[in-house]
């Protein structure tokens, strides 16, 4: 540092408009979400144009009701995927929760004990998987697959049959309707699911834990070197996911007033797909819960359209689901690519 005088570069810093300032661009990070939302609305409007009674408010309300479980599970999954992990066990945790809840309630356990118990169990299972993943450096895929086998295995072991729930609290919740408008009412399950989304969004945006989730997803090594609590955070996201899955299971039992060891199977894939459709990157570090919410709604909307179509046999149902999904993703790509 003997030759160069440092004055010239520092002089231009004081220029009125800083010439070095990077070109301002509109907030590009929200473009994917906005595009997804726009496409969802297009889908809805074309549903109204094509099908009788599609314009009923209950179509929208039911979208949230019917997908309450998926929504809650997807919220948990979003946390996991944001850290770059994956949780295959969620569907099985739903199975276990519904089976256990139904069995315990049938056995006369007090409902106010059963509820926290099953939620705790889900969270513990998640924490266990998280600990194995973090401390033993086991691939999330394989650790949570073992969790899947374990949870569903336990459920089947406890009871293979479909068990009705006749508990007062559960049936009351199940029958409860929350009026939204003149002819529209919704259920507590939908409210719980939406609250989960809001809480998760707030946690991710405004808390240290939330930001650590993103940091780990960006680069776990860097996060560690930056002195972030990687172990705690990583275990926590799997705990959140386990908790959400258990909560989803509880919502399931409320929705259907029954428990069954095969309930919720395949939910993991739906949840992962919803996250990804909503713009969450599987490699971690990018995405929003609201995106995941939109992903769930897209999924639900596809189902609704197929139900309204009503003349597809199983084969065509699958094909049309595939085509709609493809069309949606393709448009989403095109729109976001343009806008960037």
């Amino acid at each position, binding site marked *: 540092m003997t030759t160069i005088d440092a004055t*010239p570069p520092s002089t*231009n810093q004081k220029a009125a408009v800083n010439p*070095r300032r990077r070109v*301002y661009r509109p907030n590009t990070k929200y473009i994917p979400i906005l595009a997804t939302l726009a496409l969802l609305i297009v889908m809805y409007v074309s549903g109204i144009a094509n099908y009788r009674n599609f314009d009923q408010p209950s179509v929208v309300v039911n979208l949230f009701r019917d997908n309450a479980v998926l929504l809650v599970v997807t919220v948990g999954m979003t946390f996991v995927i944001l850290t770059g992990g994956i949780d295959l066990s969620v569907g099985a945790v739903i199975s276990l929760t519904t089976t256990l809840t139904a069995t315990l309630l049938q056995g006369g356990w007090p409902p106010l004990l059963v509820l926290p118990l099953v939620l705790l169990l889900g969270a513990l299972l998640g924490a266990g998987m998280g600990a194995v993943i973090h401390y033993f450096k086991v691939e999330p895929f394989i650790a949570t697959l073992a969790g899947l086998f374990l949870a569903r295995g336990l459920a089947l072991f406890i009871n293979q049959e479909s068990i009705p729930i006749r508990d007062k609290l559960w049936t009351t919740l199940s029958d409860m309707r929350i009026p939204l408008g003149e002819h529209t009412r919704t259920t507590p399950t939908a409210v719980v699911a939406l609250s989960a989304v809001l809480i998760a969004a707030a946690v991710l945006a405004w808390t240290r834990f939330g930001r650590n989730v993103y940091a780990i997803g*960006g*680069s776990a090594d860097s996060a560690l070197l930056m002195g972030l609590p990687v172990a705690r955070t990583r275990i926590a996201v799997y705990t959140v996911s386990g908790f959400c899955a258990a909560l989803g299971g509880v919502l399931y039992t409320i929705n259907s007033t029954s428990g069954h060891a095969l309930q919720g199977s395949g939910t993991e894939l739906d949840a992962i797909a919803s996250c990804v459709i909503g713009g969450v990157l599987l490699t971690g570090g990018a995405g929003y819960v609201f995106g995941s919410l939109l992903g769930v709604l897209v999924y639900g909307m596809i189902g609704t359209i197929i139900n309204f179509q009503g003349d597809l046999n199983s084969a065509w149902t699958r094909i049309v689901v595939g085509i709609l999904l493809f069309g949606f993703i393709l448009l989403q790509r095109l729109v976001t690519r343009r806008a960037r």
Partner: protein
Amino acid sequence: MGEPTTKPVLEMTGIRKVFPGVVALDGVDFRLFPGEVHALMGENGAGKSTLIKVLTGVYDIDGGDILLGGDEVHIAGPLAAQKAGISTVYQEVNLCTNLTVAENIFIGREPRTFGKIRWGVIRKRAAELLERLDLNIDVSAPLSTYSLAIQQMVAIARAVDISARVVILDEPTSSLDASEVEQLFRVMRRLKADGVAILFVSHFLDQIYEISDRLTVLRNGQLIGEYRTAELPQVQLVEKMIGKELATLEGLEDKALRSRTKSAAAEPILQAKGVGRTGAIAPFDLTIHRGEVVGLAGLLGSGRTELARLLFGADKADTGELSIDGKPVTLRDPQVAMRRGIAFSSENRRTEGIIGDLSVRENIILALQAARGWTRPIPRRKQDEIVEKYIKALQIRPADPERPVRNLSGGNQQKVLLARWLITEPRLLIIDEPTRGIDVGAKAEIQKLVAELSDGGMAVLFVSAELEEVLRLSHKIAVLRDRRLIEELDNGAGVDAERIMQTIASGQTASGATS
């Protein structure tokens, strides 16, 4: 720069660290006093970064003790280190590029009310902090939108803002240019005055002599000694680092290479006419001839990297015409450029250079193999031959071709990258910060190599934050400012650092009028 009278804030004794197959540290002692800048010196792979990682608990030690403020401690990890008052910038920029600049500075210690992060405060304070380092950027943009040098500054900002008793800076200046380094030193001096102990690693001897009070030299994982900087002449320091007589290092002598004459009447290899890319670099004209070394000079973020990338097709140009050997080409893809004999080594070796899981051998032959296509594998014997040759030529250590490149020291990784491109025998070699993090000895070797290659007819586009290096090697220097090529100079008599800085400074009015 007083002799430390107080007790050391940090003391490491008999530190030993063994990786499978390498003893990275072997009984190293190290002391750090409050209010001093202590330089850690050594060749690439000497063990500097390892010592730092041992200190901050990234690695468990295999032997020895660490005393912090006189107490023996076990530091479980970077989090514990930070809590114990040790703040670190690691060698490879270790930030989360998916987060914003502001967030990278404050993550883990965000100001909050009732648990809710106060984003406004964070953005404001981050901007202020960077301002103090003379950096004026949009702090709410993702870090990935900035060049490596800026990322390095952000990492520094983060480290110095954490109130710590020990600040560790592992090669923070490797891609900074003179003015940024000056800003950094200003901050370091202030910290020092506050009684903070600073551990500083750099391969620039000038910087060491400017800022450090004392220095510790490592060689091959062993402690050579602890010295007061002022009492150790530069020549002796180098001798201690490399363990050889300086005589073998004549390449270090400044201006040794620059009097070379360009072979006359060389035909142009590459011609750019009005090539540019919106948001990255304004349209520019540039011609590169056979056997010519063209240096790019400019300040941080002036667009050197962006220019180089366009010439390789790493980014697509959206205006202008490019011709190679007189024939127009569109560089859609690096592959196209490679087929025309262009090679490009990125400044960002961690994400755009090495492939960590692969071995040294595989990393070296990668580009050559890609050029041949997958159906024509390079015979293993040939691979071994080439790799061995370059391991020797570039002094890559450890000289084990089957070691995963991830486990090499930073400087050695850089050499691997260089080797990757050299073996493709390109006609135009574009190297962006090729000497980043490379020790004095190897740097001289590389410079010599570049000179030899250009004598042999290879054209080189040479990008470096170190202006002297550009001056020493180039036949022609293109000066950039604010993402605009403002002048082309033939490197001859009368061209020196001052002249170039002047060009850059005066360019201000020119660009102010045109942009």
